[in-house]
């Protein structure tokens, strides 16, 4: 699905990702954990194709295709998705208009038929109900004044609507209350399939007891310093990063 081959990524001329290699096969869920500032969000923005995130060495293949020349929207059309750590507030753009514009832009890019207003509405209502997102929230401008948890739920609503083949969830759990965490995790688990892969970035083992990963990686200083199975997350929680980073060095 996704092959990250020894990449170095610089932001504003400063190297942040320093030789990172990761292979994610269809159906797999990978978790990335790591201290603040270790480069997790940088990796996710880079994968999404954000301008200014410069690949200085290495390459990324998505389903065999080098993504280097692809704009963010082209990556989305091919099935990539990023649920952001800090979703952006855009007053002046209505949430529903945005959702429909985005979904139809993706469909158009893939040569699929656009959804008409009523089938779109039905689809949104169904997924919104699953995530306990109220009509009232959907009537507001995009993310504007949403609470932290509401923003995260809207990210997952988008993920379920867009049904990507590969999604990065950047700290989707932070800001969610206990019930919302369960709702969101259930939503993500419903999406799991043999064709779909996930990269889950989190600081907390709790999310990983709901969304169980096949592999857990520790990112520190811009590279993966240790990989293991789901038990690695428990070990991190018990002993902290310092111990593991030192042991790996």
């Amino acid at each position, binding site marked *: 699905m996704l092959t990250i081959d020894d990449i170095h990524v610089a932001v504003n001329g400063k190297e942040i990702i320093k030789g990172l290699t990761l292979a994610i096969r269809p159906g797999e869920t990978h978790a990335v954990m790591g201290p603040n500032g270790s480069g997790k969000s940088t990796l996710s923005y880079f994968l*999404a194709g954000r301008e200014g995130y410069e690949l200085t060495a290495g390459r990324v293949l998505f389903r065999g295709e080098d993504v280097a020349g692809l704009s963010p*929207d082209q990556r989305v*059309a091919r099935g990539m998705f990023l649920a952001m750590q800090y979703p952006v507030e855009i*007053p*002046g753009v209505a949430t529903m208009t945005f959702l429909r*514009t985005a979904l139809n832009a993706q469909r158009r890019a893939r040569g699929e038929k656009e959804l008409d207003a009523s089938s779109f509405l039905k689809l949104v209502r169904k997924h919104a109900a699953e995530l306990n997102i109220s009509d009232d929230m959907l009537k507001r401008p995009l993310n504007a004044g949403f609470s932290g948890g509401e923003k995260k739920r809207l990210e997952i609503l988008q993920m379920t609507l*867009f049904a990507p083949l590969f999604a990065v969830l950047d700290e989707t759990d932070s800001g969610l209350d206990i019930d919302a965490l369960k709702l969101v995790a259930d939503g993500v688990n419903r999406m799991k399939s043999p064709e779909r892969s996930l990269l889950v970035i989190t600081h907390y083992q709790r999310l990983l007891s709901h969304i169980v990963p096949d592999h857990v990686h520790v990112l520190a200083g811009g590279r993966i310093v240790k990989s293991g199975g789901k038990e690695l997350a428990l070990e991190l929680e018990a002993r902290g990063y310092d111990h593991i980073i030192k042991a790996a060095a």
Partner: protein
Amino acid sequence: MGVALAIDGLKAAAATRAAIHGVPHRRMEDWRYSDLRRLVPELPQAAEALAADQAQALVAQDAFAGVAAIRLVFANGRFVPALSALSPAPALQIADLGQGLPDWAVPHFGQVKHPVHAPMADMALAGMMGGVAIRISHNYRLEAPLHLCFVNAGEGARHARVLIVLETNAHATLIESHSGGRFCNMATELVLGANATLTQLRHAPMAAGETSVHTLSAAIHAGAALNQFVMAEGAGFARHETGLSFLGRSARAQLSGVSVLSGEGHADMTTIADHAVRQCTSDQMFKAVAGGKSRAIYQGRVIVRPGADGTDSRQLAKALLASPHAEADAKPELEIHADDVTCSHGAAVGDLDADALFYLMARGIPVAQARAMLTEAFLAEVTSRLPEGAAADIIRARISAALVDAGAP
């Protein structure tokens, strides 16, 4: 007839005042951003009159041609009664100033104070080629909008004057459209009697090489409200100056504007709100999208005179630069001589928010479409002030179309 003489006297006095400074230029503080003299060192000769069929054809192409309205047509500065509706109802008086000044207009015409020296309004009176006076009687609500339709073609100058008087508790909507013509100068006097309300929508496109100056002087009495929305677009030069004099308590004015500029377009939104009495509100919001090498200007002065306690004034001017060669200037000014007032002002110039642009693209929206969405979102705050109705819908559509010309996206 004495009333015709009255106009001649006013014209002569205006000509004397206008001659003192001549064409305004950038060394005059109120004209520092708009050097009209550089563009028009000498005022051109009066434009030729348009043939009736040409005027009629231009009216048919007007942006508001399809709007059901009481239409008053000015062709190359001259009022054309044959293409206009005159006094269609007893509560609505419309007088052609070419026929002299009606008695009811005498106390108002040429008498409505502008808070600062308004040289172009003087020139419009001195060189008046056409004019109308409109009166809406007490307690009358005019359902159809009044449409001042200015059609122009060719070289030369047009000078026109309009007086609008809304008596106590009268209500109306005024729509204004302007098209074509090398040099257009129009000045409007507005008197809003107690509790009267006027909604004014102006669409002012200007093509490259065209110059237009609009001066509105409004006298607003107790409890009355003016709700103005001006849309300027194109690659020509426009100055929209509005002077408000609050004359009675609890009067309100909402001034809103959108400029969407391309090429070497220049739109100068200048306002002066003179709060001389208590408890009045002036609420201003101007937004500009400037493409090409255009320049968007907002100059707003709020004067709060001694004793005008309870004044509430808000000024917001924001510009989005859609090209690296475009420019925007905003100069909100406050002169406050009273306590207990609420005055706020803000101005911002910038590009689209990079985080927002990335967010939309990261959801599959291509860059051009994402930019268009964010530009419309930038304008939404002010376009949401447009009222309901066919004319406002046309302005909304014009804004969307003009954004494409401005290169935004």
